[in-house]
Structure formats: C-alpha cells, structure tokens
C-alpha cells in the first residue's frame, strides 16, 4: 500500500494572481498569473535568472509577495497559519545538501513538523506514516544511514519522502534532477509522475526541455521575471518559443511520442537584440541575477 492510496487524494488548485516580488529595488518576478492545475505535473522552464526559483518560493509561501496573491483552493495562502500551509504545500529548494548528521529516518521525520504536537512530539501514528513514506520512495533500506553519506540520487528520494511525510497534496521541487545522472534523473521523474497519478500536484523546475515535454502535463515558461507561456507541452514548446526564450535553435525530431528537440546554438545574426525576441515582461528594469 502506498502512502497515497489510503485516501483519495484531491489536490487543491494553487494559483498565483498578479504575483510580483521586489528585492533590493529589483523585480525578480512581476505580473505573473499562473494556475497550477490540480493533480497535474507542471514543469517550470526558463533560462537562468528567469525567476523559476522565485516562483516556487512564492507558491510555497516561504517568500512574501510584493504585489498580488497566492490562492490555495481559493483562499489566500498568506492568511493561512504557516503550519497549516505546510500540511498542504511542500517545497524543496534547489541543491539541498544536508550539513548535520541526521539519520534518514530523523531527516524524513522533520517533515512531520506541521502535524506534531509541541508537548508530545512524534507519536507512533507518525512513525507508521514515516515508514510508508520511506517505503513509497524506495528508501526504507536507507532508514538508518546518515543523510550526509547519501548519493545525489538517494538524497533526492529522501527529500521526496520528506515531502510525502507532510501529507501535502502539492509538491514544489526546484531542479530536483540537476545533480543526478541520466538514470537517476529519469527515476526521479518517474516517481514524480507516479505521485501525480495518485492525485497530487507536482511542480518541477527543469532545465531539460525534452524531459519536460515527456513527463509534464503542463509547461510554464518564464523569462526575465515574467510568464511567457503556459499550457500542454505539445502546444507550448514550439521551436519558435524555444529560440526566443532560450536563445538556441530547436529542431523537433520526427517519430518520437512526445516532442523531442535537438538543440543548436543560434547563428550570429539571430542573437538577442537583432531578432524580434519577445522582451522581458513590461515593467522589468533589468534581468534578475542568475539564481535559477
């Protein structure tokens, strides 16, 4: 029995309405309207500095918006007590490298925080749940290992287990595959796919457009702090858009089940500035720093 199948999961709709963040006089993200459809795998793509990580921080409620709102199931996320929000939306920041020697079980149990009582801490029901989360992500065998000794692939699975431990129906993962080799990357995307099929919403920041096209139900394309396009990958990921946003020549390879691109650098004459590139969203002073 998986951690999900016990009850019929119904992920809430997560929505960013007119969202914008200003930090130190610079807009990292502005005027973004985006709906994370329930029980779908949404992939967020975009060049470095497009505001992908910022988007996830906003959707998770860990950063406050300068303007706009995040709505979870129609309610203002910021008005929700933090612990309650954490039970519904889980977030894993980019390249988390644990520094302290928790065991895998202790580490995953951190995810029970929003459910724990201050006086009694972790109860046996919590421990049973942790076992199921470890099992569901195939890391039960690692339960007593120190998190500091895990490989990249193992760590990502453990982080997924911690997300499941919160019982959140919406999982936001920032570049979960960036440190993984091909096999582990596909493995993780498969796991994400399965969690979606069980009813959760999963949002992944990905750099691999082909993986996004293959695994995601929806793709959101960010550039220069604005949302450029959103929709099913077959509609959104067109060579034209890829050229404008990522500044590479994209050739769709024939015969594949989903869109598969072959990428080439742009010819000199097509470099930004010379072509009719869709510029950054209006109101952007300059591009945000390269933080993902």
């Amino acid at each position, binding site marked *: 029995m998986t951690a999900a199948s016990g009850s019929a999961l119904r992920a809430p709709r997560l929505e960013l309405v007119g969202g914008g963040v200003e930090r130190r006089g610079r807009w990292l993200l502005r005027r973004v309207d985006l709906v994370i459809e329930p029980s779908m795998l949404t992939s967020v793509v975009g060049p470095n500095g497009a505001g992908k990580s910022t988007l996830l*921080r906003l959707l*998770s*409620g*860990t950063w406050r918006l300068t303007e706009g709102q995040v709505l979870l199931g129609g309610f203002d996320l910021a008005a929700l*007590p*933090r*612990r*309650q*929000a*954490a*039970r519904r*939306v*889980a*977030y*894993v*920041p980019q390249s*988390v*490298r*644990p*520094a*302290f*020697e*928790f*065991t895998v079980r*202790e580490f995953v149990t*951190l*995810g029970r*925080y*929003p459910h*724990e009582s*201050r006086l009694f*801490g972790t109860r046996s029901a919590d421990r049973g749940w942790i076992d199921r989360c470890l099992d569901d992500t195939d890391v039960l065998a690692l339960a007593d290992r120190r998190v*500091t000794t895990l490989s990249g692939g193992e760590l990502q699975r453990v982080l997924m287990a911690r997300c499941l431990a*919160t019982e959140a129906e919406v999982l936001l993962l920032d570049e979960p595959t960036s440190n993984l080799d091909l096999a582990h990357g596909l493995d993780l995307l498969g796991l994400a796919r399965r969690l979606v099929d069980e009813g959760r919403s999963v949002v992944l920041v990905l750099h691999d457009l082909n993986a996004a096209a293959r695994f995601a139900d929806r793709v959101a394309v960010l550039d220069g702090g604005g949302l450029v396009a959103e929709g099913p990958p077959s509609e959104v990921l067109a060579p034209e858009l890829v050229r404008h946003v990522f500044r590479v020549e994209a050739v769709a390879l024939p015969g594949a089940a989903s869109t598969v691109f072959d990428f080439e650098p742009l010819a000199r004459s097509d470099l930004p500035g010379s072509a009719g590139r869709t510029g950054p969203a209006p109101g952007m002073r300059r591009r945000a720093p390269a933080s993902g």
Partner: protein
Amino acid sequence: MTIALGVRRVGFWWYMTAGAALLVTFAAVGLYRGSVPLDPADVMAVLARRLLPGEHGPVDPRVDTIVWSLRAPRVVLAAMVGGCLALAGAQMQGLFRNPLASPGIVGTSTGAAVGAVFALTFGLAGAFLLAAPLLAVGGALLSLLIVTRIATRDGYTPVTTLLLAGVALNALLGAVNSWLIARSWEQYEAARQIAYWMMGGVTDRDWRHVGMLLPGLVVGCVVAAWFARDLDLLLEGEEVAASLGVDIERTKRAVLWSAAILTGSAVAVSGVVGFVGLVVPHLVRLLLGPVHRRLLPAAFLTGAWFVVGADLLARTLAAPREVHLGVVTAFVGAPFFLYLLMRHEKEVAVSR
C-alpha cells in the same frame, strides 16, 4: 561549516543513565573530599538529616556546616552552571548551524562580565549582595538587545549579521572590561575580586547563589524545551524550515533570549567558565546525533557532571590551594577538542 565525524551513536537512555551515575558519583565525592577530611558516614548522616523527613540522630554541627553550608551549595551550583552553559551552547550551535558557536557568541557572556565588573569596580557588590549577579544578567540581556537591534531589518534577523554584530560587540565589551579593570588597579581589593571573578569558579558560594541562578535556569530550560523541535528544522536552513511551517523569527528570538538568560545567570554566579558551552554540546551531538529533543537534555546533564567533576579537580589537584574552575575546564576542554579535530582530520568536511 560542519565537522562530520564518523562516530557511532550511543543510545539516549544509556547515555543519560551513565551521565546521571557520573553526576551522582562526582557530587558524592565533592561532598566528601575537601580541605577538612570527613568520614563518609558523617556526610551521609548530614544529608539524611537535611533531606529526609523524620527523626535523625545527632550530627556534629561542624560537619553539618562543612557539608551542608559549604560543600553542598558548591556542588549544586557547579552542576547548574555547567548545565546552563552547555544547554545555551547547544542552542547557539543549532541556531547558527555551526558547531563552533559558544553560548556567548552574540556578546552575552562578555556583557554579563561587564555588568559584574562594573558592580565590583564601583563597590556596589560590597554594599548589596545581588548587585553583581543582577548587573551581570542585565548586561547579558542588554548585549543581546543591542545585537539583535543592530542585526534586524524589516523584522528579519539574518544569523550571519547577528554573528558579525556579536563579534563586534564582544570586542567592544572586552575593551570596556579592560578599561574598568585598569581603572580599579589602585583599589587592591576590587582588582583582586575582579581577577578572581573573571577566572570563573564556584568557590565560597552558598545557597543564596543557587537561589539566584534557579529562576534563570528554569525559564531558560522551559523556553529551550519548547523550541527544541524548531531548532531541528532550522539546521536544514531557514527556507526549508519556513516551508515546513516553522515561525523562523519567533524561534530565533526565543532561542536567543533563552540562551542569553541561561548564559547571563550562569556567568552572574560563577564568572566566566570557558569551554563547557563549546565542547560539551559538540561532543554530545557526535554521540547522540543532532535531534535537539535528545541533544538539549543530554547536553545539560553532561555539562552538569563535567563542571562538578572539573570543580572537584580544581580543589583537589593542588590541595590545599585551589586551581580556578575556568582554568580546569579550559585545560580539559581545549585539548579534548583539539584531539577530536586531529583524530578525525581526514573526515572533516567543510560545507555551507
């Protein structure tokens, strides 16, 4: 920065049982050993008369005074001071995600020292017993207030800014201290008291000092326990902790004030006892892991037996003269810390 050592963990309850046994043993020896040789049976008789209800046989009043009024408060105070410092150190190491943080890293122990030295220099301590401890606690809290005020912007207190502000304040307060001491050089008695106090110790303390430390200890421990789980999550970084529902700023404030109260109260009654708050939590984390629900009580207990044991050494090493407690803890603590570092040099991993 992390020092990841491949030490096998030990069971929590085993560790606590062993610690309690050590504490009881050191305390018993502490009551029995001293400049006046006593019969263990007499010591037992005094304890029975003082602690157990009902009728008891007569006890030599001289022995009663030595055991109950001189040695017992000293042992109890040593245990409390050690516990407070180790607990505060464990909290600071968790908050700063740095195993090299000490209880006074944000300037609280130097602040407490300035408060006490001020009281001693201006003769307030002679006029009013509570003057030095109260000013010491006040100095600790005031230091923290200054540091957090400096480091907070828009309701957010980054720990790195806090750390840097603490370093700066520590330097400044150290200078104030030196100045106060230099000022008092002419007054022999005040200078002697200050030097004595700066070296740290629990010599000549009585039950009143225990009473002075108790409120700070209770408040500090309760707050520490209440926020123990939040510290676990903070170890994984503020972003992760916030996403899991931790109120980061509230946790920081609570932990900082709790540690400041513990440190200030301990420094107020015993002066500056070094290395306990740094080495003990570090060692306990190696043995028990970083989960604060186990780490904090274990650090408290370890600090308690460590300081009671160190005080025992302090008064028996060069008997009948006494070595200062702070000297003993540093002499035991510092080499042990270096030993840990050197032995596991190859495994030392520096990250973040």
